[in-house]
């Protein structure tokens, strides 16, 4: 029983990481209206920027992480302005397919710069905290805290600040928002900065809790997609629930079936959800 609970706990941590990774993706989907396959590559950009500062330049992890997040946020902004803005009129399908090209370009650049092999950050070893026979490491706790902080501050930002309200207005009805005097360009810039910054946070945590290799980003997109679909594309609050569901389902499944099937469980959930409830668990008809 303790072992089972341990799997559930690890699953919750995985879920929190997935929330961090997916929330920016869902945010882009909601405001910009397309699925950004390249979002996962931004996690890679952040993780390797952090690694570069931390390991190659010998900086402490905190300034390295800050640099990683900022670099990623501006890289995402630049890509949004240069690549996606001019093709918005061509519709979400073309933007979706274009983002595959972007993912290739980013992935290839990281490959060329970093090379193959496994990398780790220069940080103290994790210490585990025990309670009721369960274990959780301090880094895992940081993931949980960051997931809560990021989703809470995003919710506050969208509901309380002027820019946040502008973003919501734009995602609901771009033409109406523009005609009511909202600066569409500025709002779009803020969106790219925020969603890429969130990818940056997730990327840093990826470097902290896992070992880094250059193909790591690609594996994340599968799970990000799973969580995003389950949440109902574009819904932000449901991401929290569905991230936890996918995380727990993946880790608890190891209790019964071989660990190799972990990614399969995520997609089995997705297929079931899409077949019976195509609009996702959030239940809004945002599927158009």
């Amino acid at each position, binding site marked *: 029983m303790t072992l089972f609970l341990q799997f559930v706990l690890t699953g919750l941590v995985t879920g929190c990481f997935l929330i961090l990774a997916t929330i920016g993706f869902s945010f882009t989907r909601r405001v910009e209206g397309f699925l950004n396959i390249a979002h996962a590559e931004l996690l890679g950009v952040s993780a390797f920027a952090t690694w570069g500062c931390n390991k190659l330049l010998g900086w402490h992890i905190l300034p390295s992480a800050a640099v990683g997040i900022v670099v990623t946020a501006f890289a995402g902004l630049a890509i949004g302005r240069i690549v996606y803005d001019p093709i918005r009129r061509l519709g979400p399908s073309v933007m979706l397919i274009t983002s595959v*090209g972007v993912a290739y370009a980013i992935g290839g650049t990281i490959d060329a710069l970093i090379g193959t092999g496994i990398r780790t950050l220069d940080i103290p070893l994790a210490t585990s905290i025990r309670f009721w026979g369960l274990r959780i490491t301090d880094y895992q706790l940081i993931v949980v805290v960051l997931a809560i902080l990021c989703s809470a501050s995003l919710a506050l930002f969208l509901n309380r600040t002027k820019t946040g309200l502008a973003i919501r207005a734009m995602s609901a009805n771009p033409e109406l928002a523009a005609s009511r005097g909202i600066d569409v360009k500025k709002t779009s810039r803020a969106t790219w900065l925020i969603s890429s910054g969130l990818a940056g946070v997730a990327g840093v945590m990826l470097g902290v809790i896992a070992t880094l290799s250059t193909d790591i980003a690609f594996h994340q997109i599968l799970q990000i997609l799973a969580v995003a679909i389950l949440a109902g*594309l574009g819904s932000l609050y449901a991401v929290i629930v569905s991230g936890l569901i996918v995380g727990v389902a993946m880790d608890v499944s190891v209790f019964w079936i071989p660990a190799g099937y972990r*990614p399969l469980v995520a997609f089995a959930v997705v297929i079931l959800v899409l077949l019976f409830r*195509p609009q996702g668990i959030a239940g809004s008809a945002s599927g158009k």
Partner: protein
Amino acid sequence: MIQSLILSTLMFGAMFSVLTVSLNLQYARGGMINFGTVAYFAAGAYAYAIFTQEPPSGLDQYAFGFDLPWWVGFLAAGLAAMLFALVTGWPTLRLRGEYLALTTFAFAEVFHSILLNERRIGNGSVGMANVERPDPASIGLDDTLGYTLAACALMLLTAWLFHRLLASPYGRLVDATRDDEIAAESVGKDTARVRLQIFVISAIPIGFAGALYAMITTLVAPALFTAEVTFFVWIALALGGERTIPGAILGTLALVFFQELVRAIPFETVRGAQIAASAEEVITGILFILVLRWQPWDRLSRKAGS
């Protein structure tokens, strides 16, 4: 050197063209975004290997090997892809646009994961090596040349059949379904059925191409059938202008030629080769973005038309 470059471009180019042409039918004519192309390709390759492989012995972990002649395996490959398209298409085709793209993508990932983990299908991650294949020498042809011709034949046959199909009244029904489903429904057409038919029909040649791929590489392993194949075919389709059959074929040939060219460069160090491979990826991605951004082929054809 140049000859082998041209031959391998033609061989792989023609084989992947079969995928691109089928995808063209699904996307440009049927309006369906299939992001799981590789699954049908893998289904064909595995079906071929299972039907022609000898029964398992020694360290083999696969459960079935029927040891049948190659043409049975080839037919089985088409059939397997068709069945897989039926199974995956029937529940998913009522989804639209990006939802369809994501479900097909998910199906492909699940299929890949099963191939990787279920050793009884094809030895798990090791895959099945030494896949049986017909020997072109029996009709007096060189190995590479023989398979190049076979790939070209399959490509031309697929292109011709699809061309005939779409030039027929049925092709107009397909276009009507894509352009305005409600209008097509209102004149008594069963659009759901048309979509499923197109989905299944276009999967069959993909299965055949899978069998051919298994013959050429004589190996089937999960690592050969990743989502990268799907993305590759999509990029080729976009390069070629995504509307016409010759465009799809030219796009694929150009992309394969580019890749083979990079591979043909001799490298002194492993690092050098690796950088070249990464650069190839970056250039492919950027080309893709540029083509989608400016759509030069559409413009050219419009100019030629006016």
